[in-house]
């Protein structure tokens, strides 16, 4: 579909509607197979739980939140659907990048107006905010907003609306980061 003229300069992404339909069908598949939605942060959460449990088991046992995700039978929290899903996401992205030639050397993508450090700090801060928010919201953009809303969860709709709404409200203040 790419015109030959510009195929060098422009990455050959797929049509976003096509991606959307595929993602929708994937959601349907996971509803059909697993009876739940996609998840991205769940895997990271279990990694955190495992790390804390390894380093300070008593501390993990005393914290109500860690305890919630430590399997009662003493098995590793890592042997969980969510962790494998997150791993799959990573490798799936890598595969797609390799196929369409985007897999490359380490680099930073940013607006030309800001320095690399600024971009990395922003990414880190954004990640921390997202990490905390995803725990309060019981799901991230894929788990709560996308899968939740698709399964008609009211909470998922709230998170989706807020995520985009707040994004628009604060977009003005952070425009330098992007434009």
């Amino acid at each position, binding site marked *: 579909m790419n015109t030959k003229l510009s195929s060098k300069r422009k990455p050959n992404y797929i049509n976003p509607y096509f991606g*959307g339909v595929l993602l929708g069908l994937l959601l349907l598949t996971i509803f059909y197979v697993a009876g739940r939605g996609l998840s991205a942060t769940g895997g990271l959460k279990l990694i955190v739980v495992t790390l804390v449990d390894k380093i300070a088991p008593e501390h993990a046992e005393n914290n109500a*939140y860690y305890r919630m995700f430590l399997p009662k039978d003493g098995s590793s929290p890592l042997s969980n659907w969510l962790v494998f899903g997150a791993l799959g996401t990573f490798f799936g992205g890598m595969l797609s990048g390799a196929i369409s030639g985007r897999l490359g050397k380490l680099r930073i993508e940013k607006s030309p107006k800001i320095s690399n450090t600024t971009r990395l700090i922003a990414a880190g*801060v954004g990640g921390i905010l997202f990490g905390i928010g995803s725990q309060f919201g019981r799901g991230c953009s894929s788990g709560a907003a996308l899968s939740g809303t698709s399964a008609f969860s009211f909470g998922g709709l709230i998170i989706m609306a807020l995520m*985009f709404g707040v994004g628009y409200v*604060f977009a003005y203040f*952070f425009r330098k980061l992007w434009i």
Partner: protein
Amino acid sequence: MGPLIPLEIITGHWDFVIALLIGGAFGYILEASGFSSSRMIAGVFYGYNFVVLRVFFTAMIVAMVGYLYFSYMGWIDMSLVFVLPTYLNSMLFGGFLMGLGFVIGGFCPGTSYTAAAIGKIDGVVFAGGVLLGIFIFSELFPFYEDFYVANNLGNVTIGEMIGVSNEVVAFAFVVIAIVAFYVTSIIEKKVRKNMTEYKFE
């Protein structure tokens, strides 16, 4: 018929293989749609690139409509599909933080994995940030334990909340999505005319 795992049609460790496959497909679709680029994602907030909205809404309406048809045909038992419970207070707060994190960091966790996978340092840093954020949240959990579970509405669906059937909700979403697709494509065109600095990564 479905869902297969809750009905124990698929058991044992096969579900991990399936998780890996579905996760892989998820990552592939995200990356191929361009979600590994934070500037592309952030474009949704500045009007120069609405690819996030397109993928997101298309996926949602296809899934919603398909889900209802599948349930109608008896392929999926809706009562066995997980409906995210609504804890109003903590979800409002969480949504707020995520919106903020979204516009500052330019990723969400799933997309940051794919960005990291193709070698973007900012993606790695974002994923690390998420990890740190979850750790901070867990460590401070005792301070807001009550807030975390306050105002629990249970596994309530959108339809139940506003008093219509899920079919109507799905229809409304389809209409909204189509209108949004049209409007955003016009906005995008206008914004891009005035933009010289943005190029595809």
